[in-house]
């Protein structure tokens, strides 16, 4: 590089050790809130909240909303909204339920639990979800109908398409392989989970290191090594800590016995097997990592944020904002279908009320996670943390024994309070 790129940065006040970590304060705040919530509930439930079993359940309960919240971040960042995600989840779930219980085994004569059923079902579901999402996006982008209206209509339409497809009946049991995507029925097992944990840690450290190298190559200022190492340590601890927790949740003996019986073997006496990472959580991790890369490192992601920050500027910069809208809604539809796989597999059937009120949970998760409704700001990890906080609140209150009406009153109040704190925080920061 030429000299110009290595001009000395004017020396400001020496940053504190904490500032040198360059952590996202909002992220820290949310993690702090989550930790306080967990400890609080743990005290009130006499230590039942922070058990491997409960944390395992908490994570699989969060997955469905968290996956959709990732897509909702992009929708809200571009100043749109999607009120139809719960209904879309229901429709894609209904389509998949009918595909695996009616269409494939009976109409096409493949029989129950055919090894190809789960794959065909999921492909059909994802396709339907993506197409419906794209259709919404086309109406918003090209027909310029406000997203609020399109998806409010979609909310009524798809909820009842699902009803019509299944005649309002609960459809089950679902394909046995399909059920593995639900949580308890499909986990990686302890060894694979450890390997995955180590692999994920290695990837995270490599990402930190290569980011630093790219900056250093152009002579930009980089964080001190100790700050980088601390960050890597925290990430490694979080990943491996989670693996440790889900591995130490042992499969109940009765259940383990049945698993051995199913394979025609007898269970050795006193055997203890941990669950490991649920496949549904693995899906969430893949979705989150992929979308974070999309948001930060692809043109598509850059255009999403530019459009949210200033739609006119984006258009004048030559970005095809209409097509972008179609893509974003198509992605949302795709993620609704992924969530439908997880949600129906977790319940082991498709019920008529699946995904009811999910649109509000998903929006709340994205907003609690720091996505600004005015557009242009939002993160994937924030939305996932938002979903986790909401689920922790809900499960925790249920465990403590808070009356059902109060649970929703608290969740609603927390949503409003979280957004208010965010507004105050942004004003202090001097940003918009």
């Amino acid at each position: 590089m030429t000299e110009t790129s290595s001009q000395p940065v004017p020396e400001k006040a020496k940053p504190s050790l904490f500032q040198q970590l360059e952590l996202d304060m909002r992220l820290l705040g949310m993690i702090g809130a989550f930790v306080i919530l967990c400890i609080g509930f743990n005290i009130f439930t006499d230590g039942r909240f922070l058990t491997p079993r409960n944390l395992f359940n908490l994570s699989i309960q969060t997955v469905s909303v968290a996956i959709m919240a990732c897509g909702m971040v992009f929708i809200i960042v571009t100043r749109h909204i999607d009120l139809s995600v719960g209904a879309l989840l229901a429709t894609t779930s209904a389509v998949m339920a009918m595909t695996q219980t009616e269409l494939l085994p009976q109409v096409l004569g493949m029989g129950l639990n055919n090894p190809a059923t789960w794959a065909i079902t999921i492909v059909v579901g994802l396709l339907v979800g993506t197409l419906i999402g794209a259709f919404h996006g086309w109406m918003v982008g090209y027909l310029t109908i406000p997203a609020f209206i399109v998806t409010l209509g979609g909310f009524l339409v798809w909820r009842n398409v699902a009803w019509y497809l299944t005649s309002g009946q609960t459809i089950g049991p679902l394909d046995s392989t399909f059920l593995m995507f639900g949580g308890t029925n499909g986990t990686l097992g302890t060894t694979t989970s450890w390997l995955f944990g180590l692999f994920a840690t290695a990837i995270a450290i490599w990402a930190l290191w290569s980011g630093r190298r790219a900056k250093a190559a152009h002579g930009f200022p980089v964080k001190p090594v100790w700050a980088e190492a601390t960050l890597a340590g925290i990430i490694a601890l979080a990943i491996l800590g989670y693996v440790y927790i889900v591995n130490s949740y042992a499969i109940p003996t009765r259940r383990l016995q049945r698993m051995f019986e199913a394979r025609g073997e007898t269970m050795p006496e006193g055997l203890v097997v941990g669950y490991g990472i649920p496949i549904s959580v693995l899906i969430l991790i893949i979705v989150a990592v992929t979308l974070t890369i999309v948001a930060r490192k692809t043109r598509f992601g850059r255009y999403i944020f530019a459009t949210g920050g200033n739609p006119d500027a984006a258009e004048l910069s030559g970005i095809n904002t209409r097509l972008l809208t179609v893509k974003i809604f198509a992605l949302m539809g795709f993620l609704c279908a992924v969530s439908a796989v997880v949600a129906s597999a977790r319940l082991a059937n498709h019920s008529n009320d699946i995904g009811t009120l999910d649109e509000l949970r998903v929006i709340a998760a994205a907003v609690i996670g720091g996505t600004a409704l005015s557009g242009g700001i939002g993160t994937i990890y924030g939305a996932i943390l938002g979903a986790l906080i909401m689920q922790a609140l809900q499960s925790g209150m249920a465990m403590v024994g808070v009356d059902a009406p109060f649970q929703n009153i608290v969740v609603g109040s927390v949503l409003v309070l979280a957004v208010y704190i965010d507004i105050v925080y942004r004003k202090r920061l001097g940003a918009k």
Partner: protein
Amino acid sequence: MQAQDTHENSVKSGRGSGEAPLVEMRDISISFGGIKAVDHVSVDLYPGEVVGLLGHNGAGKSTLIKVLSGAYQMDHGEILIDGQPVEIANPRDARANNIETIYQTLALADNLDATSNLFLGREMTTPFGLVNDAAMEAECRKIMAQLNPNFQKFNDPVSALSGGQRQSVAIARAVYFNARILIMDEPTAALGPHETQMVADLIHQLKAQGIGIFLIDHDVHAVMELCDRASVMKNGKLVGTVDIADVTDDDLLSMIILGKQPAQKAE
């Protein structure tokens, strides 16, 4: 057609030496809901020339120029670049013809940093197809060092920048990608005297490189100082186009206010 070359030593640049104009907008009309915002207007621009577009608010000068930058669609007329008719249906087409615009409203995405704004729509990518932020920031630092050496806020969103800093980002964006035709819509409206001078210097510099510039402005003095010719519009119609050397401030003012062509000054 020998229009590609610029004659830096000729006072009137490419004009008058028989070259085709860099841009020719012929007989352009555009109306919104029955109101003729631009009514059969023709203007042209030669390489290395600055043409001022003058007129009151609502005279149609911004609308006319938005046809060239692809933001609006004309109802009638023709655009020629280097003597060849071109189709400009959207901002992407304009960019493909090396037309760059600096808008009055700046057209920056406030939530992104200077580098992301500079490269918006034209990001540099790594071999894997991901955006190459480090390489783009390095380029951004290079061009900003030329345009505005005091600029340091490379990692802040542009909402945190001052008016002048934002303007330099907008200008950097127009200049960086080898514009041949530059449209500046009141580039100094939000700026202090020092920054205004900076923009004026830049216009001289770009002119010397053979870039043709359309400068939209209210300010007659700025136009007298920076432009070679001025086209004056009133109520959507072209009042006339004059050589700045042949007119006075008052002549221009009476064209703007009264819509009157200065006597005996027509070419």
